[in-house]
C-alpha cells in the first residue's frame, strides 16, 4: 500500500476486526481448537498425558464399535430419539393448541407447564428417582389403588428403564417446546380461523389443514432442536440411572464421559465423541433438508 491511504471502507473493516477478535480468540482456543484436536487425535494413541502420540488409523474406532456395549448404547440413543422427538413434538403441539384456545387461563397453564424446564436436570432426575425407585411414590400409588401386580423397580428393570427415562425427559422438556409452538400459533392471523368457521371447517380439519401447515417453521425448529437435545443430553440420564442397569440406559453422550473420566481410555473417548458428532450433524442435516422441502411445498 505504501503511502497511499487505505480507503475509508477498508479502514473501517480493519477496525471492525478488533471488535470480533476477543470473542473469536475465546471460541477458537476453548472450543474449536479442542474439537479439531479430537478429530485428529482420534486417529492416534494419544492419552492426554504423554507428549508424543502415534498414528494408529482407525484402530480406536474399530475398538469402540466392536465393544460389546456399543450396540446397546447406540440402540438406546436411537430408541430415545425415535420415541422422544415425535412424542414430545405431538404432545407439545397439542398442549400449545389447547393453551391457545384456553383464553386468559392459558397463561397460567403455560407457566405451570414451562416451570419444570427451568429447574436443574439434577433436581429433576432426583425427583423422578424418588418416583420410580422400588419403595418410591409410583409404587406407593399403585399399591394404594390396588394395582399391586404392576409394582416394580422401574429404573432397575430392563423393560421399563428406557420408557421411564423417556417419560421424564418429555415431562421436563414439554413446556419449552410448547412456548415455541405457541409463538408460532400467535403468528397465524385470526381471520383465517374466522373464515374457516364460516365455511364450517371441522376442528380436526382445521388443525391438519390450516394450523399445522401455517406453523411449519416452528415444527422445523422444534424437531431439529429436540433431536440435537436428546442426542447430546447428559445430566438427566446421568443422574437418573448412570446408564444402568448394566448398559441398558446408557447413551452415546454418557458413554463418552465414562470412557474419558471413569475408564480413562482417552483415545476411545475421542473416537466415540467423533462418532457422536457425525451422528448429530448427519441427522440434523437430513432433517433440515426434509423439513425445509416440506415447508416450501406448503407455501
Amino acid at each position: 500500500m505504501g503511502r497511499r491511504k487505505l480507503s475509508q471502507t477498508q479502514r473501517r473493516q480493519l477496525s471492525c476486526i478488533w471488535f470480533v477478535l476477543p470473542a473469536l480468540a475465546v471460541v477458537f482456543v476453548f472450543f474449536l481448537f479442542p474439537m479439531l484436536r479430537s478429530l485428529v487425535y482420534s486417529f492416534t494413541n494419544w492419552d492426554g498425558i504423554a507428549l508424543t502420540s502415534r498414528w494408529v488409523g482407525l484402530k480406536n474406532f474399530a475398538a469402540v464399535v466392536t465393544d460389546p456395549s456399543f450396540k446397546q448404547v447406540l440402540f438406546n440413543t436411537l430408541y430415545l430419539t425415535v420415541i422422544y422427538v415425535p412424542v414430545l413434538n405431538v404432545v407439545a403441539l397439542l398442549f400449545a393448541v389447547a393453551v391457545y384456545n384456553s383464553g386468559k387461563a392459558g397463561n397460567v397453564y403455560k407457566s405451570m407447564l414451562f416451570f419444570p424446564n427451568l429447574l436443574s436436570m439434577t433436581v429433576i432426575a432426583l425427583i423422578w428417582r424418588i418416583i420410580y425407585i422400588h419403595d418410591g411414590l409410583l409404587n406407593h400409588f399403585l399399591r394404594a389403588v390396588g394395582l399391586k401386580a404392576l409394582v416394580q423397580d422401574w429404573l432397575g428393570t430392563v423393560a421399563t428403564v428406557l420408557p421411564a427415562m423417556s417419560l421424564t425427559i418429555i415431562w421436563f422438556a414439554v413446556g419449552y417446546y410448547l412456548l415455541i409452538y405457541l409463538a408460532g400459533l400467535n403468528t397465524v392471523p385470526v381471520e383465517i380461523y374466522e373464515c374457516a368457521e364460516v365455511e364450517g371447517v371441522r376442528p380436526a380439519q382445521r388443525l391438519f389443514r390450516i394450523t399445522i401447515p401455517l406453523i411449519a417453521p416452528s415444527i422445523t425448529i422444534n424437531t431439529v432442536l429436540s433431536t440435537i437435545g436428546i442426542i447430546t443430553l447428559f445430566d438427566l440420564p446421568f443422574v437418573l440411572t448412570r446408564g444402568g442397569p448394566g448398559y441398558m440406559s446408557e447413551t452415546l453422550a454418557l458413554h463418552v464421559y465414562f470412557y474419558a473420566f471413569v475408564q480413562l481410555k482417552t483415545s476411545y473417548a475421542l473416537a466415540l465423541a467423533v462418532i457422536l458428532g457425525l451422528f448429530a450433524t448427519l441427522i440434523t442435516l437430513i432433517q433440515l433438508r426434509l423439513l425445509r422441502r416440506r415447508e416450501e411445498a406448503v407455501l
Partner: protein
Amino acid sequence: MKRPKRFGYRQRARLGVSLLMALISLLLVLPLWYVLNNAFKVEKEILRSPLLLLPRSATLDNVANAFKAMKYPQRFLNSTIILALSCALLICLGSLAAFGIAMARSRFLNGVYAVMVATITLPFQLAMVPLIFLLKGLHLLNTYWGTALVYSAWFLPFVIFLYTGFIRTIPRELEEAGRVDGCGLLRSFLAIHLPLLKSVTGTVLILRGVPIWNDLLVPMITLTRSTLSTLPLKLYSFIGAYGASMTHWNLVFGGTFIVSLPILLAFLFLQRYFVRGVVAGAIKG
C-alpha cells in the same frame, strides 16, 4: 351488550379444552408439589405416607439439615460467581463481536460468522476431552475463570448469532449519523447500539444463564475440588453419597428444594421475561 345465556358449541368446546388443560397442568406439576410438601414433613411421615398431598406435620429440619450438609452458602457463592463471570464474558465479547460483524460488511468477517453459526449445533462432547487437558495445561482447572471460559467458548457462537441478528435490524443511518458527528466505532457502539441491546441481552441471560446455573457436566469435569462445587454438583455428590436406594428422603427433598429455590424466586418475579426470552431465541433460531 346482551348476550345469549346458553353457551354456543364453540364456547362449550373452549371451556372443555380449558378444563382439560387445567387438569393436565395440575397433574404435571404434581411431582414438584411432592418435593415442596415433603420437604417440610417430619421424616417418619414422609416414609409412612409419602402420597399425602398436605403435610400433617411441619418442620424446617429437612431444609436446615440439607442446608448444613451441603454447606449451602459457599456453594451458592460458587454458582453465582461462575454465572456472573460467564454471563459477563458472553455479553461483553458477544455484543462487541456482533457489532463488528454487522458493521464491517467484509467477506472475512462474514466467513467467521458463518463458521460460528455452523458450530452452534455441534455437541460439547466433541470438544470435552482435549478441553480438559488444555485447561490442565493452562492451570485453569479448579478455577472460576476456567469454568467460565468453557461456558463462554461453548455459548458465544449462539450469543453472537442472537446479537448479530438484532444489530442488523438497527438502521445503519444511526451509526452513519454518529460518524458524521465525529463518533468513532467504539463510541458509536457504546452510545448508540448498547442502549438498544437491552432486550436481546435479557434473552441471552435467560437462554444461556439458566442452563449455566443448572449445569452439572461442566462443573463435574472442571471443578474437582469440592470447595469449588456449584449447587447442582454438590446436590449430586451429596445424594450420590447415600447410594442408589436413596434412604434419606428427607435430605433429598430438603436438598432439591433449596437448590431450586433461587430459580423459583426468579421465575415468580420475572416470569414474563422468561417466557419472552425463550420465544425470542426460538424465532431467531
